[in-house]
């Protein structure tokens, strides 16, 4: 079971790097949607006995993260006529390198944290931290509002992975994580309604400098 779980987690780590290095927004959305499907598999692999909260978690993850949110994002892309390129603040190669460094850091850092005996040997903690960091990199190095939302979604996926360690002890608290998706939905709806193509498209660059001081 642990082997299969770790395989899934390694695929998620690779997807993070893909998301960091892809230039087309549509492709990034697809990667994140696939990551959502894998997230739905994890609860089934982590736990031996199927309980209702765990099944619920798996179904909710797939429905929200893999279907609903990617679908409304694609719609936002179309409705707000966003250019389909990512326009990063730093290049794609540096982004990937940064992501790889973050992954290495996550592995080292997770090594410092003691685990409960039943969680030994799984990559849940390092994958979770690496995914959070990858999401953070996506969020701060991208100009467009929609790319920032994608970054936030990846960050949230990382938190979901960590929640898997706790789902038996306190299922309710873990399910609170679903509320984070509320933000994503509101962001995307905000983009559709206000046509914010870029986070700061409303201002020209000169005024942006004056805002930054």
């Amino acid at each position: 079971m642990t082997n299969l779980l770790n395989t899934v987690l390694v695929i998620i780590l690779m997807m993070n790097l893909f998301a960091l290095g892809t230039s087309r927004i549509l492709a990034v959305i697809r990667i994140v949607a696939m990551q959502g499907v894998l997230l739905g598999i994890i609860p089934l692999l982590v736990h031996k006995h199927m309980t209702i909260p765990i099944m619920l978690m798996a179904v909710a993850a797939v429905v929200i993260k893999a279907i609903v949110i990617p679908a409304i994002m694609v719609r936002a892309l179309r409705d707000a006529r966003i250019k389909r390129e990512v326009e990063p603040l730093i290049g794609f190669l540096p982004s990937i390198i940064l992501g790889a460094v973050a992954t290495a850091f996550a592995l080292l850092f997770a090594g410092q944290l003691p685990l409960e005996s039943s969680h030994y040997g799984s990559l849940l903690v390092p994958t979770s931290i690496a995914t959070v960091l990858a999401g953070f990199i996506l969020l701060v190095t991208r100009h467009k509002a929609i790319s920032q939302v994608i970054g936030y979604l990846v960050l949230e996926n990382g938190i979901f992975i960590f929640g898997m360690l706790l789902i038996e002890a306190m299922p309710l608290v873990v399910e609170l994580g679903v509320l984070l998706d509320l933000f994503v939905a509101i962001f995307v709806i905000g983009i559709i309604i206000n046509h914010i193509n870029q986070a700061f498209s409303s201002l020209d660059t000169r005024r942006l400098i004056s805002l930054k001081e």
Partner: protein
Amino acid sequence: MAFAMILFPLIMAVIAAAVPSNRLRPWLLPVTAIAHLGMTVLVLARPDLTVSAAWLVLDPLGRIILLVVSTLFFFCSFYTVGYLRHSHKRSNRVFCACFIAFLGIMSLVTWSHHLGIMWVAIEATTLVTAPLIYFEHTPRSIEATWKYMVVCSVGIALGLLGTYFLAYASLHVGIESTLTFEGILQQAPQLSKPWLHAAFVLLLVGYGTKMGLAPMHTWLPEAHSEAPSPVSAMLSGALLTCAFLAILRIYHICLAAGEGVFVSRLLLLMGLFSMVVAGVFMVGQRDFKRMLAYSSVEHMGILALGIGIGGPALFGTLLHVVTHGATKGVLFLSAGNIYHAYGSKSTDQVHGAIRRLPLSGALFLAGFLAITGSPPFGPFISEFAILNGAFDTGRFITGGLFLFLLLVVFIGMGTTVLKVVQGRAPAEVRNTPYRDGLLTAAPVVIMMGLVLLLGLYIPAPLAALLNDAVRFLEVRP
């Protein structure tokens, strides 16, 4: 009692959304505020009312924040009625409903005695305040709202991760996990140290974002300067202190776990850094509402610094929550009057406020003197107590830096404030119809009176409240 305090504003918010008249609707704010303040006084006077459920308990820390939130909302609610009359003719339906709901949710933050509930409540504050910041519907307010939502939701997400880490800290050592404060405080000494450290860092960064500690403060200057003034006052005096309450809770848990040294080092660092950032950006600031926003960053830094020093500085820090809330209310509300009279927030256009609006101009100036810690106002007492605490615990370098940064802020803020207040008002604004009215001036005058009162003497019930909270923080299970 908790349910009444939380649900009553929420029900009033629904009613506000249903009221058709744009003119009558704002009056629901004072109605809610009076009832809420009444309930707050009742609950503070009757300790037997402070437990509503295992996860809804008003502990001594929550009491102070609840008092600040409720009082500040009381003054802001009357002011808002006056403010909205001078605002655009746009419908204030969403604004009023969200503003009232905001009060209910902040009450939930103060009452929540469970990390999960507290997290939900703080997340909800972000959601209800976003439409308030967006009220003006200008491109700049879209930008401010977007930034606010993105930065704060990342903070909230990290806060959730930190909460998970804290839960794992108890799971890992094989004790039954609980997230009620009482439970965690009792388990604190046994919690797994590495997980507790990691959890503290994440929670500090997460809730620190909401509290406006540098370098996660980036949303704050924009949101505070774009939001309507009563909202800015509530954001600064009440919402930031609600986030501070969250940090206080985590701090309390770490103290109980015997991790005081680790925690205080981080808090001192963040506190001083926030003050430095605020000082740097305040010098030469031309937008006076933005300057007030940076002043909030500075004061949140002071609060972090105060609990970082701990021990003898705790009383001053908790008092500072109260004095800062009242003074920031004075400043933002009088700044709102000046903004309405001039139609600008920049010192390029705004001069001579004391002649154009004698009352608001004078209050703005007095508020500035108070917030920078000049005697005989409230913040002087609280800042002095924090400084005393720093020297008492032998932190001379911290104390020295604190004093130096206060001086930098005084000079930076003073330049901008004097530009606003002194000089001759430009001819085109001298005859605009805006004047100080009863609703927009009286609440500010009374608040300024409170600030002065707090500087001269601290009423016995308030002192008892603060001492209770200090004792509560220092108790080791």
